[in-house]
């Protein structure tokens, strides 16, 4: 099985955070026999930064499995290999929101009907379903941004414009291709591990994040 764990990092993003998180991601990659690849070059410079995740569609074309993990995710070394329990025909993201609360629907969301708004700081898909990372082909960036509803949490000043485009396009691809879908939480429930913390990730300002990550490491007894 050929597996790659991808993350994004442009202009040496938050070295104080990645100095902590990358060794844990690398350790996990080694454990599951995956390559760890940091995407550092922009291919879609006219799009918001988070859209660069969609490079995985091409970069992961020859892999059996692709993982995406945000650079600020802390991965517990006890984390198991998801590819051993997730069916190849099913995509996974950490959790899901009600898509109708975040996005204006088009024909794909309407016909799909599951209202999946995937959170994609942690996403897994096999070679059967790599279209989850398919770049937009049929609508413009402007049209995509118009389809994203600004919810109250998004109005926090430290978030950049268009930062939710990755969630939008991933959710739209799940709907477009009708992908079978599980959240990480539902998978943990299925395998009787609900409540185990294998991944730590919070959407908070950078200054608070380093403090929280260190607290998590203390809790996990790595500090």
């Amino acid at each position, binding site marked *: 099985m050929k597996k790659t764990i991808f993350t994004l990092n442009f202009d040496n993003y938050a070295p104080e955070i990645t100095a902590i998180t990358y060794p844990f991601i690398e350790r996990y990659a080694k454990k599951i026999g995956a390559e760890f690849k940091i995407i550092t070059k922009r291919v879609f410079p006219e799009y918001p930064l988070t859209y660069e995740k969609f490079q995985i569609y091409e970069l992961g074309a020859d892999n059996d499995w692709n993982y995406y993990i945000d650079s600020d995710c802390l991965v517990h070394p006890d984390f198991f290999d998801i590819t051993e329990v997730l069916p*190849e*025909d099913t995509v996974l993201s950490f959790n899901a929101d009600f898509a109708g609360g975040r996005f204006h629907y088009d*024909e794909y969301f*309407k*016909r*799909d*009907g599951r209202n999946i708004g995937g959170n994609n700081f942690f996403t897994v898909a096999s*070679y*059967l*379903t790599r279209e989850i990372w398919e770049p937009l082909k049929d609508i413009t960036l402007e049209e995509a941004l118009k389809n994203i509803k600004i919810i109250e949490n998004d109005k926090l000043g430290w978030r950049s414009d268009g930062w939710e485009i990755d969630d939008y396009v991933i959710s739209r691809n799940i709907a*477009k*291709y*009708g*992908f*079978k879908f599980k959240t990480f939480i539902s998978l943990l429930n299925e395998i009787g591990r609900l409540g185990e913390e294998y991944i730590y990730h919070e959407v908070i300002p950078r200054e608070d994040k380093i403090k929280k990550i260190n607290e998590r490491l203390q809790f996990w007894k790595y500090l």
Partner: protein
Amino acid sequence: MVKLKKTIFTLNIDNYNREITDLTYPFMKLYADKIDADFVEINKRKFPEYPVIYEKFQIYEMTKDVDWGLFFDCDVLINPKLFDITEVIPMDTVSSLGVNSLEGHYDLDEYFWRDGRRMSVGSCMTFASNLCREMWKPIDDLTLPEILSRFHPWRNEELIGYTPDYLIDDYLISRNVAKYHLKYRSLREFLKESGVNDFDCIYHQFGLPKEEKVKQINEQLKTWGYKK
């Protein structure tokens, strides 16, 4: 109530079998009138390098601005007593008369594998709303030789002279249904739920010589009470 825009399509390049369409078209048009649909005969080629039946995939573009597209092969006989099927097929669901197993029929790829339903959708009549018009989306990731190499006619199809290029529409429609994991239910199921037998409403036979088909269509019209 918003009035839905519907179109009934059929395919007839080079005036195929006039003796047959002289019988079937008036009934298609009666049905179109009944359900307030336009009747459109696709008679110009847009994909000349492909087998003629691939022209069905023109419907993808032609349904951009309609709510429902209904395709019938031009040798399908429709009993005008058939109710408006767009009233029972959900807009998020595609339909055809029925499905076959695809075992031994197609070489499967990642779309069929991930879909998992293993359906070969019969394409002599297909129905989709504007939410699902990808069912008729032209192929954009395989060449014609690649497509033809993936399709293996059954023995009964070989016996009536079918070759892979004659069945490309079944393969590609089935592949699109799998690729986009479009919800599917057969027309037979919808008719059965409505207490209707498909033989009372629709007649279609494939693989018959033209003379035999004309004869059978005339007999069907007698059965339905439209001829003496």
